[in-house]
């Protein structure tokens, strides 16, 4: 009886078609635009930067004297639309870090919101600050939203983010109140690309201890070819103490042959609080690079059920005979974050247009 009623009720719960279509559009955009926008912004030619600076100096006298310096930043990012931004300047402070909603700009079905985070006590906010998936935007209308860092001011330790919200379905954005909250962020991010891994591959023979684990993820260029070997479990190297650390927070905990294939295992401690990841490739004597055929992931806990002791293992598998390995060197690219900062930053503010 309960089951029937529960099922019948749930049959009526379906996502809005607009949501599905927007999600697909968003996914396709993400696939095409692989690099973060901040990188594109920083790559703009010097001439454009100079032009924007000129815009700031021309526009600055028109600004009220007490307009914070960060507000002028909007001119540097978007001089054509800066005049339409409505100052908000609502802020909150937690853990020595201030989050301030600088200004909003509503046009058609889109709201653009500039938010600044400034660290008053330490260097936790930096040019690599990433809100990853720890922010939330609560708004009373159906919409899609995204957040990106658009600039960083070293002198004031302030990172500025642009949130763009696009409304679906004819709801009027203007007059709505939204709440932007952040519960944590990562910073001190580093990239180590194409670095040599100083491990003697000739010692990567067989006879290593292995075990069977439940896998939590799998992938790779040739994964489909090997997926028959895997069900929900896989044979992996028994993790050892760190053999080599190619980047802070990423340890190589195993390397050796299993069933005729080269396995390289990495461990990342507490991955939920860091975004540490990477990949390996083998470079032969002709400088030809070869990435892993597939990789698998599994999770272990140093203490049972203690999330803080979670270790994420990734094992990269190369289908390469040991005889061919002699002429190869191991390289890798790694991406790490050194700081994870928690807090409770939340600002509720109205979306208004500029009055003239």
């Amino acid at each position, binding site marked *: 009886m*309960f089951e029937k009623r529960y099922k*019948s*009720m749930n049959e009526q*719960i379906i996502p809005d078609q607009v949501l599905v279509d927007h999600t697909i559009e968003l996914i396709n955009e993400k696939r095409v635009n692989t690099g973060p926008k901040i990188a594109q912004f920083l790559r703009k030619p010097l001439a454009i930067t100079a032009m924007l600076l000129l815009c700031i100096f021309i526009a600055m006298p028109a600004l009220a004297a007490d307009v914070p310096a960060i507000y002028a930043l909007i001119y540097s990012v978007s001089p054509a639309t800066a005049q339409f931004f409505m100052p908000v300047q609502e802020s909150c402070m937690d853990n020595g870090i201030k989050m301030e909603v600088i200004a909003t700009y509503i046009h058609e079905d889109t709201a653009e919101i500039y938010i600044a985070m400034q660290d008053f006590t330490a260097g936790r906010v930096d040019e690599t600050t990433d809100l990853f*998936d*720890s922010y939330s935007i609560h708004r*009373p209308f159906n919409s899609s939203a995204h957040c990106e860092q658009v600039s960083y001011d070293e002198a004031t330790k302030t990172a500025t983010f642009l949130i763009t919200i696009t409304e679906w379905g004819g709801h009027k954005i203007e007059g709505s109140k939204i709440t932007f909250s952040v*519960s944590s962020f990562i910073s001190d991010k580093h990239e180590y690309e194409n670095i040599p891994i100083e491990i003697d591959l000739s010692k990567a023979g067989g006879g290593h201890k292995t075990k069977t684990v439940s896998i939590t993820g*799998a*992938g790779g260029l040739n994964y489909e070819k090997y997926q028959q070997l895997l069900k929900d479990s896989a044979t992996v190297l028994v993790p050892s103490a760190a053999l080599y650390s190619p980047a802070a927070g990423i340890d190589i905990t195993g390397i050796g042959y299993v069933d005729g294939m080269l396995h390289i295992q990495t461990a990342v401690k507490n991955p939920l609080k860091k975004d540490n990841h990477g990949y390996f490739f083998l470079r032969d004597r002709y400088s030809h690079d070869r990435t892993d055929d597939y990789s698998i992931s599994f999770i272990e806990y140093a203490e049972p059920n203690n999330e803080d002791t979670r270790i994420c293992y990734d094992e990269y598998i190369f289908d390469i005979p040991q005889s061919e390995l002699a002429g190869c060197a191991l390289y890798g690219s790694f991406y790490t974050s050194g700081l994870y900062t928690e807090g409770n930053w939340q600002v509720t503010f109205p979306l208004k247009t500029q009055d003239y």
Partner: protein
Amino acid sequence: MELQSQCTATEAVVRKYADMVFRLAFAQVRSKSDADDIFQEVFLRYIRRNPSFESEEHRKAWLIRVTVNCSKKFWSSAWKRKVVLLKVAPLDDCFSFSLPEENELDEALRELAPKYRSVVHLFYYEGYSVEQIAKILDQKQSTVRTQLTRARAQLYKILKGEV
């Protein structure tokens, strides 16, 4: 060409699992707009991680786990911890069901502790066994069984029987 085929494949996955992900998200947060956010986050994680699966069942299990995790993250937000105290959702944020007893059930599920909602949904709607739910959510079978028992007890009290 490869990019185009990846986009098409992902689109097919989104369309295939859209209802399942949205229903599971809604089952936990019981708010359309919040379920919308979780829905997008789940599929964005899907393209970020670009996982491969040996079967559709494995892919479905991955999506279920990520949806449950995204919903948990939602519950941990400070804003949500405050607003849920009101227990009243805006009208345009709810579904209106065709039968009065379905609306009554929806109300009861709003009162059910959030931590029990996912197991109830996976058990009663998706038809998974306790063993399968434990495997998908990476929990002990005993934990899932306890959650189901406690959920039934809470619903029994709220609905005055019928569970």
